[in-house]
C-alpha cells in the first residue's frame, strides 16, 4: 500500500500540521501561564480542568478502545481496571503494583476465558 504517509510530501504535511496547528497550544499555555502563581484561583481551576480531561481520556481508552484491547470483553476490562486501583491502595499507593497487577488480571481473565 503506497500512501502519502510514506512520502517526503507526507513528512512536510506532518511538519506543517505539528508546527501550525498543534505546538501553538503549548506556546500559548506558556504565554498565559507566565504571570500565574501556584496558589491562585485560576491555577487551581486550570489544574482541575486538566485533571478532568485526562480522566475523560482514560475512560475513552478503556470503554472505547482501539486495536486488540477491543477484543477483550468490556466486563474483563473493567474488572482489571478496578483491580489495579484496589491493588494500588492495598499496597500503600505503589503505582507499579497497581499497573502490573491490573495487567496481570487482564491476562489471567483473557486466558481463562478462552
Amino acid at each position, binding site marked *: 500500500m503506497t500512501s502519502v504517509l510514506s512520502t517526503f510530501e507526507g513528512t512536510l504535511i506532518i511538519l506543517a500540521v505539528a508546527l501550525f496547528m498543534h505546538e501553538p497550544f503549548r506556546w500559548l499555555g506558556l504565554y498565559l501561564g507566565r504571570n500565574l502563581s501556584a496558589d491562585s484561583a485560576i491555577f487551581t481551576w486550570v489544574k482541575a480542568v486538566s485533571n478532568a480531561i*485526562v*480522566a475523560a481520556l482514560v475512560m475513552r*481508552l478503556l*470503554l472505547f478502545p482501539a486495536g486488540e484491547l477491543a477484543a477483550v470483553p468490556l466486563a474483563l476490562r473493567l474488572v482489571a481496571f478496578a483491580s489495579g486501583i484496589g491493588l494500588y491502595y492495598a499496597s500503600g499507593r505503589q503505582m507499579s503494583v497497581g*499497573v502490573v497487577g491490573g495487567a496481570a488480571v487482564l491476562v489471567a481473565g483473557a486466558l481463562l476465558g478462552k
Partner: protein
Amino acid sequence: MTDPHQRPTRGMDGPRRGFRHGLLVSLTVPGLILAFSSAGFGALALDAGMSLGNAVFMMGIFFALPAQVVMMDQIARGGSVLGGALAVMLTGVRLLPMVVALMPLIRDERRIPWRQVLAVHAVAVTAWIEGMRRLPPLPEEQRLRHFLGIGTGLVLAALIGTAAGYVLAGTVPKIVSAVLLFLTPIYFFLSLLATSREAGDRVAVMAGALIGPVFYVLTPGLDLLLTGLIAGTLGHVAGRRWSGMWREDDDP
C-alpha cells in the same frame, strides 16, 4: 521505585545532576509505559501505510499520541488533510491548560525563554503527570533543568518505542498487544489519584471519568474539552466550598 531527586546532592553541580536525574525517569514505570504505548503507535503506523521514518518523525514533532493517531487515521482512510488538521487542533487544545498548570513550577527569569519553549514540547500526559508529581518537592532553581531531563528522556523512550513497535508489529501474540493498550489508561488513572491530593482535584477526576464517556457518545471530537471544562469547574467549585467550610472568613 527510587526517586532520583531524593539522593543527597553534593558540591555545586546540582543543576546538571537535576537534568541527568530527570533523564532517568524514562527508565521508571511511566517511561516504560510510554515506550510501550509508542510501540502501539508504531504498529498502527505500519498498518496505516506510513514509512518508518515518517512514523518516528511524527512521534518526535507532535509528542502527543491522540493527535498523531487522529491525523494518521484520517489520512489513511482517504480523508482530507484539512479535516485531519482540525481534529489535531481539537485534541491539541487540552495541552494548553496542562502547560498553564505546569508553568509556575518551571519558572525561568531569563529574557529569552528558549528553555521553556523546549521544555513544554514534552508536555503531554506522561511528562505532565511526572512534572506535577516530582517538581514541587525540589528547590525552585532546579525544577526547569529537572523537567528538561524528564522531557528529553521520555521523548527518546517514545522514539525508540515507535521504531521497535513498527519493526515488531504483527509478531507478538494478540494478548500482548491488548495488555500494551491497557497499560496507558490504568497508569494515567493511578497517576491522577496520586497527584490529586486536594478534594477539588479528586472531584474533578471522578466527574471527568463519569461524564467523559457520555460526551464521547454525544459530541465525539469535543468530548475531552467539554468534559474538562464542566468537570473541572465542578471540582474547582467543590474544592473551594470545602476549604471555605474550614475558613469562613475567606468568603468574598
